[in-house]
């Protein structure tokens, strides 16, 4: 593993987009940044600017209004990038998957790398999911977890 690849694992910058979530998952994401869970010790910063971010954290289901915005933000992120769908709404649409305006989970719009279910997602699960993302970036496939998700 080259130095740059090692650095990519140790420094993961996040941009967070709320696709229509009730904000429950967003609050939990913020909680993960607080001193109690402190993801900054892994080098994770909420940078808020897709041009400088590695990971796109999305909450809430994709709908007709925000699909273009979501796609735009995804396109503005430079490679290599990851998408993490946080919360059941982002994974599959959740209880809103049948609504008229809802397309479903965000994987209907952009490719997703890690799904973290939950309503709202617990910060520990978020940290766990981020570790999964890091492993994916490093090329180590976490076999057991993939089977459970399917």
């Amino acid at each position, binding site marked *: 593993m080259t130095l740059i690849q090692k650095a990519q694992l140790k420094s993961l910058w996040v941009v967070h987009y709320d696709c229509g979530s009730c904000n429950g998952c967003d609050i939990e994401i913020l909680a993960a940044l607080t001193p109690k869970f402190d993801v900054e*010790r892994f080098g994770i910063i909420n940078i808020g600017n897709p041009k400088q971010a590695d990971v796109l954290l999305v909450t809430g289901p994709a709908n007709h209004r925000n699909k273009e915005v979501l796609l735009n933000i995804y396109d503005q992120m*430079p490679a290599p990038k990851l998408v993490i769908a946080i919360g059941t709404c982002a994974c599959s649409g959740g209880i809103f998957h049948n609504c008229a305006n809802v397309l479903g989970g965000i994987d209907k719009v952009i490719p997703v790398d890690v799904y973290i279910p939950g309503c709202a997602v617990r910060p520990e699960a978020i940290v766990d999911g981020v570790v999964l993302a890091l492993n994916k970036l490093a090329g180590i496939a976490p076999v057991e977890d993939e089977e459970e998700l399917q």
Partner: protein
Amino acid sequence: MNLISTLIAVTLALATPLIGGLLAGVDRKLTARMQERMGPPLVQPFYDVLKLWGKESMISNRLQPVLAFGYLGFALIAAGLVTFQQDLLLILFMTGIADICLTTAAMNAKSPYSYIGGRREFLAMLSYEPVMLIVYIAIFMVTGSFTVAGIYAYGKPLAMVLPLALIALQFVLVIEMKKSPYDVSGSSHAHQELVRGVFTEFSGYTMALIELGHWAKMATTLMILGLFWAPNPVISAAISLAMFFITLVVDNIYPRLTWQSMLKTTWSVGFILVLLNVVALVIGGVII
């Protein structure tokens, strides 16, 4: 200057981004500890820069990467002027060029965030450059020379003669390091105003260059602060680090203030303090 000292000067100048990066790491660790959390490892900023280097880069136009390198390059030249003990005014002007490279690169992108960040960066420059100029003139009045070599030749530590100037420079340090309360143009990480302010439209290797340039500038300013106790290198480093620490504490206590407040406070505090100091020295007979 003989070969050894030339080599040392060149190495020190080229090492300023690394020194600055380590200090940035210390900054993040101490800030985290002040907030009762673990914080990233000390070398985290280097991981950040390496990661940025490995990313795809998105640019606004073909001039932007040249200007981004200009920011780093001119900061290194300024650092070189310090290590080769050259004229203080020239050091100030070279860092001025570096800043202009940054703001021009930021204004290159037709983005309101980046544009307002650039505009505020101008105002930040407008705030701290006159104060530094006045301090340098006060130093000239005391040592009789504008060069770093002259400060070393003066013998007495400047902090004993110009203590108020040092306090004025604390304000300058806060603005230069882009820390609260004066981080109006583009704060260091974890804060988000105007998205990333003047740094918004940089990504990949251009962002890495900007980060390195920022660290070089920070290290250069700290070196200049250290000149206030030139005779003893240990106390010199202690002064730099002490002012660095004060900046961190102030950053964690204060919210962000407006640019008008930054301009007014820096100018009034800076000018008044330095003037008082000079008047005291005239009365005391140190300056004729």
